[in-house]
């Protein structure tokens, strides 16, 4: 599924970032996005950050996508987090 999920960058180590979404942490690669800093919100897909968003945009998107994902079930599509 090509739906990316926003999360907050809490740690950066070279080309890898640790991104937090609702208490869960996930390792996300930064190969596709420059200029990412700690505290930034990024949309990640298939394990890679693809876009930076504002915090309020991130929270709004997260709500929408959570509903959509609950509807689709956790079948392990190319979901992010």
């Amino acid at each position: 599924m090509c739906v990316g999920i926003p999360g907050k960058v809490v740690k950066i180590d070279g080309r890898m970032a640790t991104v937090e979404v609702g208490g869960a942490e996930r390792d996300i690669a930064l190969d596709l996005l420059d200029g990412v800093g700690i505290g930034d919100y990024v949309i990640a897909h298939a394990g890679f950050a693809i876009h930076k968003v504002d915090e309020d945009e991130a929270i709004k998107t997260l709500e929408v996508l959570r509903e959509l994902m609950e509807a689709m079930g956790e079948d392990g599509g190319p979901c992010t987090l």
Partner: protein
Amino acid sequence: MKYIDEYRDGEVAGRLLEGLRLATKKKLKFMEVCGSHTVAIFKSGIRDLLPDNISLVSGPGCPVCVTPAEDIDRAVLMARLPGVALATFGDMIRVPGTKTSLQKARAEGADVRVVYSPFDALKLAQSEPSLKVVFFAAGFETTSPAVAATLGRAVESGLENFFIFSVHKTIPAAMRALLDTPELSIDGFLCPGHVSTIIGTRPYLFIAEEYGRPAVVSGFEPVDILQSTLMMARQVEEGRPAVEIQYKRAVSEDGNPKAVEVLYRYFEPSDSNWRGIAVIPGTGLKLREQYSRFDAEKVFDVRPGEPHEPKGCSCGQVLQGIKTPPECKLFGRACTPENPVGACMVSYEGSCAAYYKYGRR
């Protein structure tokens, strides 16, 4: 109007619908080509609320649904090779090939591993040097740059046991092919959300400039989709077809140029077979010649038999919006989410699965 109350922004939705009623009297058919839009539209039931002259049709926006049987057959053969593990996204494992699926092959002993990211496949290859890891790379432009970046890391580290079987597809040229099919009568496109995050909006300009139709990049909430539909209806009424972005928080005109650059560093366009539709030129992605050593199709000589689609399955017509799921003879009878016959029922982004879940009342 029973769904309006369920919307988070019921009042906004109401106003948008009123706007749509007033916008135009023309009979218009808009198509979406994004699996997540398919689900959002079915789930929200907004089709029933649209004015009679405006319809929203689901197109081939589900990369799982458009992967042809012969590619599944090839993946199964690779997974059965000794010393090979086929890593795949979870939603591909139930897709029917000609005789079997990856899930069934796995049950019979083929090494099939579900991963959430191509990166996981890379890590598997790195941790088990004697295992040949083939990543079954499906998805549109939201996903293919991630696969390209992963390959980049494999190239950098000189990995010799990591391979990619690319069945990636790209959307804009497919949209052109759909516009070139006059019987589909598409008056405009709702453009995909996160594909557009990557490719920006310039790849859609031809829709407005050459075909004179609207193209609006839409978010996933019912109000996003309603607003995008209204934007398209107004464009048509006012005679000013254009590419517009409704989903501003995730999409810009430029997209993500770095992701696009990484993608085309490792991949180039090819022709691609869209299941049940046709081979559409220039809509596939294959590894560039200099990366042939990572190309699973070149490295592993697997020969699937003659492919064929399940009898009675109307996926191809459903994917083009020619038939709705209930118009397929098998829908809800021989073909259900528990026992899917065709790809459109297997994937939760497929029209048939979405209709089955949300459309039956």
